[in-house]
């Protein structure tokens, strides 16, 4: 892991967070406001500018962090996925981003679709890399359509005699795709380096970043990114074995990717946003068959690698708490949305750190008194024995600037142990 220049403030906050994750009582309840795109509004720039103007976006984040003084912050790269110019160079069809398909002050939105057809399972299973390069990328990025013209990647397995095959890369559609890739790469590299510098600077100023890597539950990777929700749910009936094979196939990819990113950044926390596993999406029996085994394996592998998995249990997980009890104690930071936190505390209080407690609706449509009272109530109940991080149920994009301030201050005021 890289060594980072840190400060006393950083050590204090990191200890506070780590104590909570290890189910201990820190000096006080840590506060983790899920800023996401909030800094843009706070600093008076549009979301579109956040996607396109690196300097102003980083300044907005710095101002937000320094003014709100949180124990963890979300990195500026998180709500962007890639710079607007990179999305444009690739002609990204899987999202609409501010100013491109959604208004200049709307967060980016995923375009749900069947990016892998039902009859492509075998192709995907036999050679996922080849399928990804020649089928998937041309579908999700308009500018990479040319990659569908290249021969199977394994045809390069021809020794010196294969040297001439690369000629295909110069035919116009392929060359255009490579140019687009190069353009997106240049932009992304510049932004990524600036993000890394930003994180170093924040470390020096005393503020730890939330996470440096994202992993997906294997079912979600297939469902979100490849087959679509509809597709996977139909596959659960029409071709359950193929679906399970694909899920097993992507598990090591998720584990390896997350560990690699964590090693590069030195940040141990891995964000795992969960989608289709929530209550109501599928039955417990389906969850047990299709969702949980590989999610559990992912979480355990990350723990084995010395990392801290941070699953975001979006929606409700009240029906799934028994499964979560199978996880080892003090190793996971569970971020909760609409689950009943009292039930969660009872079932998982000895298992994982609970992050959450503040409904985003209250930070958007509540009053300062309501926010203060609710903050205090959560700290005195869910937070009373430690193992708790005060956070919001979702991103703060649309939250009221003043109510967020009241919330952060109330946490510090009532949160001392």
């Amino acid at each position, binding site marked *: 892991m890289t060594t980072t220049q840190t400060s006393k403030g950083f050590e204090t906050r990191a200890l506070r967070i780590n104590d909570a994750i290890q189910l201990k009582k820190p000096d006080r309840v840590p506060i983790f406001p899920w800023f996401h795109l909030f800094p843009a509004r706070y600093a008076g720039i549009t979301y579109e500018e956040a996607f396109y103007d690196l300097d102003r976006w980083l300044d907005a984040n710095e101002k937000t962090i320094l003014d709100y003084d949180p124990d963890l912050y979300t990195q500026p790269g998180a709500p962007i996925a890639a710079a607007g110019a990179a999305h444009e160079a690739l002609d990204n069809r899987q999202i609409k981003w501010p100013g491109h398909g959604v208004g200049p002050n709307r*967060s980016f939105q995923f375009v*749900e679709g069947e990016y892998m057809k039902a009859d492509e399972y075998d192709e995907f299973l036999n050679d996922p890399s080849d399928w990804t390069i020649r089928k998937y990328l041309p579908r999700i990025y308009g500018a990479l359509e040319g990659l569908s013209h290249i021969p199977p990647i394994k045809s390069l397995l021809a020794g010196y005699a294969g040297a001439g095959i690369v000629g295909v890369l110069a035919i116009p559609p392929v060359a255009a795709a490579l140019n687009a890739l190069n353009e997106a790469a240049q932009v992304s590299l510049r932004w990524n380096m600036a993000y890394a510098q930003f994180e170093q600077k924040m470390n020096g100023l005393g503020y730890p970043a939330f996470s440096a890597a994202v992993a997906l539950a294997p079912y979600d990777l297939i469902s979100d990114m490849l087959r679509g929700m509809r597709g996977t749910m139909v596959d659960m009936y029409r071709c359950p074995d193929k679906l399970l094979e694909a899920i097993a196939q992507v598990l090591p990819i998720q584990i390896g990717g997350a560990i690699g990113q964590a090693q590069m950044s030195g940040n141990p926390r891995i964000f795992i946003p969960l989608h289709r596993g929530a209550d109501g999406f599928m039955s417990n029996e389906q969850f047990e068959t299709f969702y949980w085994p590989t999610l559990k394996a992912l979480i355990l592998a990350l723990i084995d690698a010395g990392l801290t998995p941070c699953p975001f249990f979006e929606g409700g997980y009240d029906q799934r708490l028994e499964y979560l009890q199978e996880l080892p104690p003090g190793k996971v930071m569970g971020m909760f949305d609409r689950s009943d936190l009292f039930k969660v505390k009872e079932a998982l209080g000895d298992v994982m750190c609970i992050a959450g407690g503040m409904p985003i609706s209250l930070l958007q449509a509540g009053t300062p008194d309501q926010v203060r009272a609710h903050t205090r109530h959560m700290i005195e109940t869910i937070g009373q024995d430690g193992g708790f991080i005060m956070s919001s149920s979702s991103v703060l994009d649309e939250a009221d600037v003043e109510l967020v301030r009241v919330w952060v201050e109330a946490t510090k005021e009532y949160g001392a142990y």
Partner: protein
Amino acid sequence: MSSQALIDAFTEMREAEALKITNELLEQGTEPLEILETCKEALEIIGQRFENGTAFIPELIMAGEMMGQITDRVRPHIEQEAQEKKLGKVLMGTVSGDIHDIGKEVVIFMLEANGFEVIDLGVDVSPETFVEQIGETQPDVVGLSGLLTLAFGTMKETVDAIREAGLRDQVKVMIGGAPVDEHVQGYTGADAWGKDAMEAVALARQWTGGQS
């Protein structure tokens, strides 16, 4: 082959068998409309299972898939469409700025399974479109859906636009979507909020004079 066999295959998600039985029923000379009635019964059973937590989204999606295929198979044999009495009319849409449709689809499935006529405006629906469509289709209930927190603002704008167009007294407005709760209802000025599709059905029933 009997209608009961079709209901069993349909509700147990045995897709291929349900289609095979449909073909056999048609060959036996069963009235096409009767086959569709049978499927509707099956949909109602699946709706009830969804309501009591024994069926979930995969089953709703499969039910929709089977219903679509059976309708396509049967429709050419129908001479006259049946006119059925609906409980009420609901205008549904995901509000401006939000393109999520899963929650809205589930609500529509449950409303239709419970005898409501639903007009689906799709996603990212502007306040102006809602106002225009209320004038055109005269619904009893307007359902606003949204998953993103930005939807709180556009739900409010939509309710405001309905009021400004002088249509607020003609319709009941319900809102729903993962982050919606009573705080959001108060903020938007909607008549009610629902945490799930069953609550949406209960509200629609209550407002159209049915039993909830």
